[in-house]
C-alpha cells in the first residue's frame, strides 16, 4: 500500500513541467494513489493544471499569502503536516525541490533520496553520484516515509488527460517569519524556449570569447528554434546569466537535439546534457573530450562554420 504526495513547482501562475515528470516517476512504481499539493497565494489556476495530469487522484490546494514566494522555510512545515498520510513525498530535482525537500525530510525526522533516475520498485531506486560517473541502486527502509527528489531529465511529462478532484486545505501549522523574499532577477526573455524543457538546445562555451561573440549562439538557436544554454566557463566569464548554465551545478537537461559550440566537454558539463537524443559538437580542438560523447562532431572554427550552418538551415 503506497500513497504518493508530489509537491507542485510553479511560478505563481503556471505549473512547472517538472511536476508532470514527478508524476511519471511516481506512476512507475504503481502506487495506490498519487496526490499533488499546490502551495500558493492563490493556487486555483495551478491546481486546475495539476488536476489534468494523468494518474493523479487528488490535488490539494493550500492558499496562504505567505506562499507567494517559494521559501523552503515557509513551505516545508506545511508539507510535513500533510505528509503523515503518505508513504512517499516527491519533489523535482530542480533548485526549488533541492532547496525544499531536505527541509521537509528533516522535519519528518527522515532522510532524503536525491535525483531518482529510475525505479525498481517502491523502495528501490537508481540515482547518479560523482557527477553521473557512477550509478547506484539504493534500497530505502520501508519503516520510514520516503522523501525524494526526481531527476527530471530522466522522465517524460505525464499527459494532460485527467480530471482529478481539487480539495482546499487550511493548515494550522505556525510558519516562521525569519526568511523574507526580496526579488527574482531573471536574464531570460520570455520570447525564447525554456532551457529546461526545450526539445532543442544550442549551448556556447569559453571559446565564444566575449558577450558580443555569444550572439552567434543565439543566431544558431533561432535557426533551430532552440533554447540557449552555456557552459560554466561561459557563465563565469559573464557572457550569459547563471540561469543558462548546463551541467552538474546548473541545469540537467535531455533535449532531442543538443548543439555544443566551443565547449571542451568537462565531466561537470557532460553530466548536464549526456541524456540528449542527438549531441552535435563544433570545436576547433579535435582532441576536445566533447567529441567522445558527440553523435556528430565537426572539428572546425565555430566562427567560420556557424554562419554557414545558419545559412543552410534557413534554406
Amino acid at each position: 500500500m503506497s500513497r504518493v504526495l508530489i509537491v507542485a513547482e510553479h511560478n505563481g501562475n503556471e505549473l512547472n513541467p517538472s511536476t508532470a515528470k514527478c508524476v511519471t516517476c511516481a506512476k512507475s512504481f504503481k502506487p495506490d494513489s498519487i496526490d499533488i499539493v499546490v502551495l500558493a497565494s492563490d493556487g486555483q489556476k495551478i491546481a486546475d493544471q495539476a488536476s489534468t495530469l494523468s494518474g493523479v487522484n487528488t490535488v490539494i490546494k493550500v492558499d496562504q499569502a505567505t506562499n507567494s514566494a517559494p521559501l523552503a522555510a515557509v513551505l516545508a512545515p506545511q508539507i510535513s503536516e500533510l505528509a503523515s498520510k503518505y508513504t512517499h513525498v516527491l519533489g523535482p530535482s530542480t533548485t526549488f525541490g533541492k532547496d525544499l525537500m531536505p527541509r521537509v525530510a528533516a522535519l519528518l525526522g527522515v532522510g532524503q533520496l536525491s535525483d531518482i533516475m529510475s525505479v525498481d520498485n517502491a523502495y528501490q531506486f537508481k540515482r547518479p553520484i560523482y557527477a553521473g560517473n557512477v550509478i547506484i541502486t539504493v534500497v530505502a527502509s520501508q519503516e520510514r516515509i520516503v522523501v525524494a527528489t526526481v531527476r527530471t531529465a530522466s522522465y517524460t511529462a505525464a499527459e494532460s488527460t485527467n480530471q482529478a478532484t481539487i480539495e482546499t486545505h487550511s493548515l494550522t501549522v505556525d510558519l516562521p517569519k525569519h526568511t523574507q523574499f526580496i526579488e527574482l532577477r531573471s536574464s531570460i526573455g520570455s520570447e525564447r524556449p525554456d532551457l529546461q524543457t526545450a526539445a532543442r538546445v544550442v549551448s556556447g562555451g569559453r571559446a565564444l570569447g566575449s558577450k558580443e561573440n555569444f550572439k552567434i549562439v543565439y543566431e544558431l538557436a533561432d535557426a533551430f528554434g532552440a533554447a540557449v544554454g552555456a557552459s560554466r566557463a561561459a557563465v563565469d566569464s559573464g557572457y550569459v546569466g547563471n540561469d543558462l548554465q548546463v551541467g552538474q551545478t546548473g541545469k540537467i537537461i535531455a533535449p532531442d537535439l543538443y548543439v555544443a559550440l566551443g565547449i571542451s566537454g568537462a565531466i561537470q558539463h557532460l553530466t548536464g546534457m549526456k541524456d540528449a537524443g542527438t549531441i552535435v559538437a563544433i570545436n576547433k580542438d579535435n582532441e576536445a573530450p566533447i567529441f567522445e560523447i558527440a553523435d556528430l562532431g565537426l572539428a572546425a572554427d565555430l566562427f567560420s562554420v556557424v554562419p554557414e550552418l545558419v545559412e543552410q538551415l534557413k534554406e
Partner: protein
Amino acid sequence: MLKNVNNSWQYQTSQQLTNTVKILVSLKRVIDYNVRVRIKPDGSEVVHDGVKMSINPFDEIALEEALRIRERNEADEIIVVAIGGQENQQQLRTGLAMGADRAILVETETELEPLPVAKALKALIEREDPELIMMGKQAIDNDNNQTGQMLAALWDRPQATFVSELTLSDGKATAVREVDAGLEVIKVELPAVITSDLRLNEPRYVKLPEIMKAKKKPLKTISLKELGVDSETQFTVISMEPPAQRPKGIMVDNVAELVQALRDRGLV
C-alpha cells in the same frame, strides 16, 4: 571590547556584545575534483586506495567566504568541522592553513547519511553558539545537496542555499541565490545556515608559512557518540555501476555533411 564601530550588526543582541561572533564551517573530505572515479571490480564501492583526497570544493568556497567575513571584522572566530575518521585531520589542517582559527573532528568510522551529519552539526551548534553555519551546497562525491537544509530544519533557523553573493548587516544576511529562473534575493535573520554555490568566490591558495602555522592551531577530536548522535541508516546501496555509454559518434568534414546527417536523423 568592540573593535569596529561601523559594523552595526554586531550590536544587535546583548549576547553578541559579550560573546565573540563565530562562524562554523563544515568541510567534507572527498575524492579530488580532478580524479577520474573508478568502481571496484566487484561493484561494492568506488576505489579510494592511492587516490588524492581534498576538501569538497564547495566547502572550500564556504570557508573562503567565512574568512572574508572575518577580514571585514564582521566575525571573530572561524571554526572548521569535519566528520569521519582521523584521516580528516588532513582537510582540517588545510582549513586551518587557509585561515580558520580552530578545528573540530567529529570522529566516526561509519559513513554517515546527511541526516545524522545534520544532527551532529546541530549538537555542535548547541556547544558553540555560532551566528552562521556555512558549507557547500553539495559534496561532489554523493551529490546529495541536503545537509545544510536538514540542519536548518532541525535547528528551526533560516537557510540560504546555492548562494553566490552574501552581505551581512543589522543581524541579517542578504543572500543572492542561483536558482533555475535566475538570481533570487532573500533576507534571513541570523543565526542561519548558508550553503555556497561556485560563483560565491575563488578560494585563496595556501602558502607554506601558513601550513607551518596551522600545525600549532588547536584541533579537537570528539566522538559522534559524545555528541549523542546515532549513525542511523535509512538507505542501503546494493550495487554500483558505470553509466550507460553512448554509441560512438561520427566526425563530419564540413557543414554540408553535418546538415545532411541532421536531415537523415529527421532533426532538420
